[in-house]
């Protein structure tokens, strides 16, 4: 229902009414003006300004005749002279009246009047001396006077007739003027009457409209009242100050106050426990203080309510404010949510229990996997060692089977551990330059044997322009691809597996890898499920193919980690196509050596026997590692935990220390810090971390602790050999067993990484900032007292800057100061030495920068 038409109607009625009122005002003004005119005319009429004019004029005729008569009588009888005088005076007086009276002004101003009047006046003036003179003279003049007066009678007659005509005209025009005025007045009065009628009509319509609206309002109010009363929730209406002005039956039931008790009281005082008042006023009810409408998010809130009996219960309040015609009203719906709250609590508890159970299971699984991996590593290592002994063909065969089963088992265990890491959110993707071709070559190479076993052919190819160098997480990508290819091989017999690579258009960073097989395919209803954890489509296949069902789940997570997507298209019987799309930006400029891992390897020296300290708590691992090292001719000293390792390092000089990371009593990082901080003969010996999952941030932490490199568990024999040869070589090159010489001045590989990641410009900026910062820090440190409480923190901060720019030797020195400062093991000599190290590092850094820019 729209409200516009009635509004418009009402507006138009008002417009019309005001127009009519204006018109009426105009009419009334005109009427008032006219009335004034009429009143003036009436006034003029009511104050008659003349006596009988006609009579006066006629009387002049009569009086001149009477004078003539008196003159004739006096001629006959001189005793009648007095009568002559009186009649003369009377006539004189009459003419004087005509000359001076106000009423004759109209007459006098007419030119036709002046001539006869002049004659009369001349006669009067001439005669006065005779009349006033003595009787004899008057008697003598009587005949002449009589003749004059006889003549004069005609003139006076003329005068009076002229006067009559003039006054007739005047009164005619007066009458017509009055008539005109009255007609005009009538017309205006008619207009006024019409206007009044219109106004009456219009008021009547207004009245009808108002009555209709009132009716609508009444029925609407009744409807609203019914709705409000029927509501289950308590509804209260408050004024601006929060006092209750209305409430419904549900409010009475909920809070136990009748209308009489509640109306006029403040809702806050009545319905909410006092302890919450401040909180409510500061929170959802502050709109009362601000006098504004609550924002949508402020309208719904939960709090505690209290009823007449003092029971306190949770309530949900939905509140809003209406601004209607300057009357501000707050409406609140209040609902008792005790039951909901109780249900929520039950649910929460149930969920928490379930989650705790899940977590316990997951933790158990992770723990079991971890515990299984150590003996597995032992088994695999031992098998590798067995190959050093002369074996029969049969034995080698058996060993192959054992090793393959062991590797499979290890894969499963690693899957579970990967999953656990995902769940804990510990993984992040790396971004390093790598070669796509090399990656795919490796994938194909790794899986070729397995593919051949199933009678499959495997190959990879570029679609579009081949390219090589890209930036991404090669390890994760390899893991995903291996998983997909592994799956394809599992479900394909005597078919082919093709890996296609294509750079997608658009944003330009996405590269799509497709693994296409000609295997059994997947039914459409399963396509969604296969990326779920522990999902094996067919238990018989699962048994045949093996696997935890975690593979694709992990692949999905890994791809997500790299910022990509994974998907599948398949047709049962025809094969499947798994695709992944991941962002792999091109690396346009390939800095030399960026691909090489940051190791100390140099190729100058051959393997020479080394004194090796092996710190490892696991006996089997110890045994395997020892066996590997000894088979290469190295001399091995074992330590069962970090603490023991530190003691050995302080007692003897070793060429290299292999340090397990997680150990009881003291872990590898702590042990490394202590060895570095101590002054023992092995304080500067290269330390290599041995760890199961070397994540980039972990490696950074190891370096922070003073470790030089890192090797993965299970220890790969070839990797170990290479690493140790590097150590030997470095030592041989430097030729000086000074502990600091164990580290290079500058780790150029790290700088190359920086350059790759940030580009030359940003790297240049960072380097110059580093120079400024370290200049200041070293100067400050050199002047600091060795016992200063801030020393450790200052050294740590400076070490951080050095680490970022590959200033390995300086960083190590700073690290030793940092650790030593806490135990008071720093001398001013140590601090003084920093300056020297910095000059050395600074020069190397600038030289590298010059080279890299060239």
């Amino acid at each position, binding site marked *: 229902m729209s409200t516009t038409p009635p509004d418009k109607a009402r507006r138009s009625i008002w417009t019309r009414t005001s127009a009519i009122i204006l018109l009426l005002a105009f009419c009334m003004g005109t009427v008032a003006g006219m009335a004034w005119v009429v009143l003036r005319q009436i006034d003029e009429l009511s104050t008659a300004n003349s*006596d009988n004019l006609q009579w006066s004029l006629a009387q002049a005729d009569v009086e001149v005749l009477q004078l003539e008569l008196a003159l004739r009588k006096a001629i006959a009888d001189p005793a009648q002279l007095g009568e002559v005088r009186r009649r003369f*005076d009377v006539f004189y007086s009459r003419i004087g009246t005509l000359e001076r009276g*106000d009423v004759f002004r109209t007459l006098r101003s007419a030119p036709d009047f002046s001539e006869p009047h002049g004659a009369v006046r001349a006669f009067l003036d001439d005669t006065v001396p005779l009349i006033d003179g003595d009787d004899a003279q008057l008697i003598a003049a009587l005949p002449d006077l009589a003749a004059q007066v006889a003549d004069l009678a005609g003139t006076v007659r003329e005068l009076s007739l002229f006067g009559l005509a003039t006054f007739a005209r005047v009164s005619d025009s007066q009458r017509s003027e009055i008539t005109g005025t009255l007609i005009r007045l009538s017309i205006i009065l008619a207009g006024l009457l019409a206007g009044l009628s219109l106004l009456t009509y219009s008021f009547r319509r207004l009245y009808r409209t108002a009555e209709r609206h009132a009716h609508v309002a009444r029925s609407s109010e009744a409807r609203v009242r019914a709705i409000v009363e029927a509501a289950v929730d308590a509804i209260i209406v408050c004024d601006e100050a929060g006092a209750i002005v209305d409430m419904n039956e549900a409010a009475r039931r909920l809070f136990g106050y009748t209308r009489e008790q509640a109306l006029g009281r403040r809702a806050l005082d009545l319905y909410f426990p006092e302890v919450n008042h401040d909180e409510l006023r500061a929170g959802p009810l502050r709109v009362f203080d601000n006098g504004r409408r609550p924002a949508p998010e402020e309208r719904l809130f939960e709090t505690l309510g209290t009823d007449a009996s003092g029971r306190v219960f949770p309530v949900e309040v939905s509140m809003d404010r209406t601004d209607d015609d300057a009357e501000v009203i707050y409406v609140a719906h209040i609902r008792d949510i005790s039951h909901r709250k109780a249900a929520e609590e039950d649910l929460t508890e149930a969920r928490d229990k379930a989650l705790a159970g899940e977590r316990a299971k997951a933790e158990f699984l992770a723990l079991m996997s971890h515990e299984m991996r150590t003996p597995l590593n032992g088994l695999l290592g031992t098998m590798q060692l067995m190959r050093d002994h002369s074996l029969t063909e049969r034995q080698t065969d058996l060993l192959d089977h054992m090793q393959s089963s062991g590797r499979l088992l290890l894969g499963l265990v690693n899957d579970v551990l990967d999953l656990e890491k995902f769940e804990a959110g510990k993984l992040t993707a790396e971004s390093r330059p790598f070669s796509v071709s090399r990656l795919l070559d490796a994938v194909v190479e790794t899986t070729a044997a397995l593919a051949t076993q199933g009678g499959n052919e495997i190959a990879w190819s570029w679609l579009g322009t081949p390219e090589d160098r890209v930036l991404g997480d090669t390890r994760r990508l390899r893991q995903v691809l291996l998983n997909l290819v592994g799956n394809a091989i599992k479900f394909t017999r005597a078919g082919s597996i093709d890996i296609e690579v294509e750079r997608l258009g658009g944003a330009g960073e996405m590269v799509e890898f497709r693994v296409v097989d000609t295997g059994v395919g997947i039914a459409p209803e399963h396509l969604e499920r296969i990326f779920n954890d522990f999902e094996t489509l067919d238990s018989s296949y699962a048994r045949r193919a093996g696997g935890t069902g975690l593979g694709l789940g992990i692949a999905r997570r890994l791809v997500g980690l790299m910022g990509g997507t994974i998907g599948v298209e398949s047709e049962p019987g025809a094969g499947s196509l798994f695709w992944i799309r991941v962002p792999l930006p091109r690396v346009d400029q390939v800095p030399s050596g960026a691909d090489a891992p940051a190791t100390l390897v140099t190729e100058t020296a051959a393997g020479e026997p080394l004194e090796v300290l092996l710190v490892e708590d696991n006996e089997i691992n110890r045994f395997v590692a020892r066996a590997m090292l000894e088979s290469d001719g190295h001399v091995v000293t074992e330590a069962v935990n970090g603490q023991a390792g530190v003691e050995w390092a302080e007692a003897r000089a070793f060429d290299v220390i292999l340090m397990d990371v997680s150990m009881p009593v003291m872990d590898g990082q702590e042990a490394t810090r202590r060895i570095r901080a101590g002054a023992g003969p092995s304080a500067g010996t290269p330390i290599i971390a041995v760890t199961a999952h070397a994540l980039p941030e972990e490696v950074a932490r190891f370096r922070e602790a003073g470790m030089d490199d890192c090797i993965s568990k299970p220890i790969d024999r070839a990797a170990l050999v290479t690493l140790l040869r590097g150590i030997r070589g470095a030592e041989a090159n430097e030729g000086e067993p000074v502990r600091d010489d164990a580290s290079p001045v500058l780790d150029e590989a790290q700088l190359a990484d920086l350059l790759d990641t940030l580009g030359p410009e940003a790297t240049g900026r960072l380097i110059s900032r580093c120079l400024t910062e370290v200049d200041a820090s070293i100067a400050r440190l050199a002047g600091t007292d060795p016992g200063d409480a801030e020393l450790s923190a200052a050294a740590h901060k400076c070490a951080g800057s050095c680490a970022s720019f590959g200033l390995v030797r300086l960083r190590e020195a700073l690290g030793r100061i940092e650790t030593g400062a806490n135990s008071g093991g720093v001398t001013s000599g140590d601090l003084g030495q920093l300056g020297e190290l910095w000059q050395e590092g600074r020069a190397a850094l600038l030289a590298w920068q010059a080279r890299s820019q060239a």
Partner: protein
Amino acid sequence: MTLLSRTLQAAACLALLLPLPLAAQDLPVPEGEPVLTVSGAIGQTNAGDTAVFDMAMLEGMEPVTIETSTIWTEGVQSFTGVPLHVLMDAVGATGEVLSAKAINDYAVDIPIADWSEGGAIVAFLNNGEPMSTRDKGPLWVVYPYDSRTEYQSEVIYSRSIWQLDRITVK
């Protein structure tokens, strides 16, 4: 006139005046030229059954002065004369209406209502000057036209008789 006669006259006057209600009963005989003759239903006479006044008698009857404009003159005029009701008291008039006549034989009836206080006067001075016959004199019945609008009607104008010389009380 001797001192004695004056004293006697004064005494006579006193004697006349003392019984005041009776004082009006005796009208003196006019000594100068008569200007007004009142006849009809009157209680006081001095010439047969009429009361005759000369100018001196009228001047001795506590004359009043009014200021008013008239339709026959220009500007505001001052008129001095005897109020009509004083004159009627003096003659002991008992009628309801008087019929006034002028030298020019104009005649009009003036009802008792106009003899009231503040009503018509019989004027003998206009702007302090006696009025001649040529100038609507010597007596002129004048109403204070400006004081009341009722006096600005044709009826009143017709009663404003000038050159008055006879009154008959009816």
